[in-house]
């Protein structure tokens, strides 16, 4: 542990790991920190195969992508600390870190915040009852530690996460009482929905959760139909005897540190929350402060990895001497991959959102 680093990266998920890997090709003295016990972020819980083209890790499982990234990082150049939280950023060069024993500072000219996202919660009666989990928590319990949260689950949200986690629960022998979706449509890919359909798991579109009941933990859930403005329609309630309610109702970018650092922040609906304005190199309104991955707007791991590489590369550009053609080659390669990833109907939201926070330099 030193006091001064060339680059400090906060968050060891797909974006942070990719940033570290890319940066370590050109420079050393890189610090990568993560709050959790293991590096890899959400990737290490993702047992499903990725979509897209070969360049975007298609048909590889998230768990294997994480292992690949972690293995390729040169520990002589990148120092990794787990179980460490970043608690404050002080312009221009100082980040405050804490672990169980102490509070300390590290200095650097370049910071990359790849802080990810946190699970959303929705309002319903007793939504704080033990047995109500975020989908990420359920994935952590079962796919990292082999522990299932209960015997019978009601899933809220039929986006990709809701569908995938339902299937993963089924793979662990848990019964899925149903998947509840407030919109008229299943938001996730039909290949995931089809897997549930084949197992005869009902998907209730135009429904939302109204209440959870139980003495100390969840014992029952009540759902009801909703109208086009998502108001509950009377006398349409359905009851389920479940011990677990899993919420897959979206994510919010974790941007507290960037906001506290003083970056220009904008609320962008398409990116699911307050996000820092940034240029195409992922540099925010504060010079030397970068963002990457879900913290710059909710997308998928493939986009996070490319954004991480971009931030890592640009941070090095200001430190090390680059051959001009090598620089242009590397940048345009990542730009091309990002663009192709976001092409098509599923990428439209991200493209529109990113336009709203673009900084032209």
């Amino acid at each position, binding site marked *: 542990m030193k006091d001064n680093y060339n680059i400090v990266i906060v968050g060891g998920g797909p974006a942070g790991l990719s940033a570290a890997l890319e940066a370590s090709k050109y420079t050393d003295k890189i610090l990568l920190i993560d709050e959790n016990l293991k590096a890899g972020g959400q990737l290490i819980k993702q047992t499903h195969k990725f979509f897209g083209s070969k360049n975007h890790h298609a048909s590889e499982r998230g768990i294997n992508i994480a292992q690949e990234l972690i293995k390729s990082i040169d520990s002589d150049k990148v120092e990794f600390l787990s179980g460490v939280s970043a608690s404050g950023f002080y312009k221009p060069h100082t980040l405050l870190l804490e672990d169980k024993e102490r509070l300390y500072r590290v200095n650097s000219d370049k910071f990359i915040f790849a802080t990810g996202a946190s699970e959303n919660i929705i309002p319903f009666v007793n939504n*704080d009852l033990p047995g109500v*989990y975020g989908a990420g*928590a359920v994935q952590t319990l079962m796919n990292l530690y082999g*522990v299932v949260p209960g015997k019978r689950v009601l899933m809220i949200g039929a986006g990709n996460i809701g569908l995938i986690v339902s299937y993963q629960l089924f793979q662990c022998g848990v019964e899925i009482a149903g998947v509840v979706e407030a919109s008229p449509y299943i938001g996730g890919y039909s290949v995931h929905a089809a897997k549930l359909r084949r197992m005869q798991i009902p998907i209730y579109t135009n429904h939302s959760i109204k209440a959870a009941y139980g003495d100390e933990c969840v014992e029952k859930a009540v759902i009801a139909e909703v109208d086009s403005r998502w108001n509950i329609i009377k006398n349409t309630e359905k009851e389920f005897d479940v011990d677990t309610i899993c919420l897959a109702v979206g994510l919010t970018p974790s941007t507290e540190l960037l906001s506290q650092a003083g970056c220009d922040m904008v609320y962008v609906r398409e990116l699911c929350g307050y996000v820092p304005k940034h240029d195409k190199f992922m540099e925010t309104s504060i010079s030397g402060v970068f963002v990457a991955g879900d913290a710059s707007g909710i997308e998928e791991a493939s986009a996070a990895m490319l954004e991480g590489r971009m931030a890592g590369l640009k941070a090095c550009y200001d430190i090390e001497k680059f051959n001009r053609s090598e620089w242009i080659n590397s940048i345009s390669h990542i730009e091309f991959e990002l663009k192709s990833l976001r092409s098509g109907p599923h990428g439209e939201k991200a493209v529109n959102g990113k336009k709203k926070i673009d900084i032209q330099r």
Partner: protein
Amino acid sequence: MRFLDHPILDFNSKDKKLVSFTFEGKTFNGYEGEPIAAALHDNGIKKLRISPKLKRNRGLFCAIGKCSSCLMKVDGIPNIRTCTEPLKQGMKVEYQNIKGDLPEVMS
């Protein structure tokens, strides 16, 4: 509850070490290094905290150290995020006194 057979993942590694810990005075087992909250779940304990103001029961929610729903007293120290704190042999896990008392000895 743990599962042993999974089509993709392998949880039967021989490197896993079973350790014992106490929760509210009773002895339980869990695997060394897994989060305390995972070990508690395996033993059927889902209520991890009581909310400070309205005294409502709280369980595991985010499991990544963000939501503070799983804060407990571990070896006398309150406000430990049991979702990210690794389990060790002989740990003493308890409900904390709402916001948590100052530990008697801080070294």
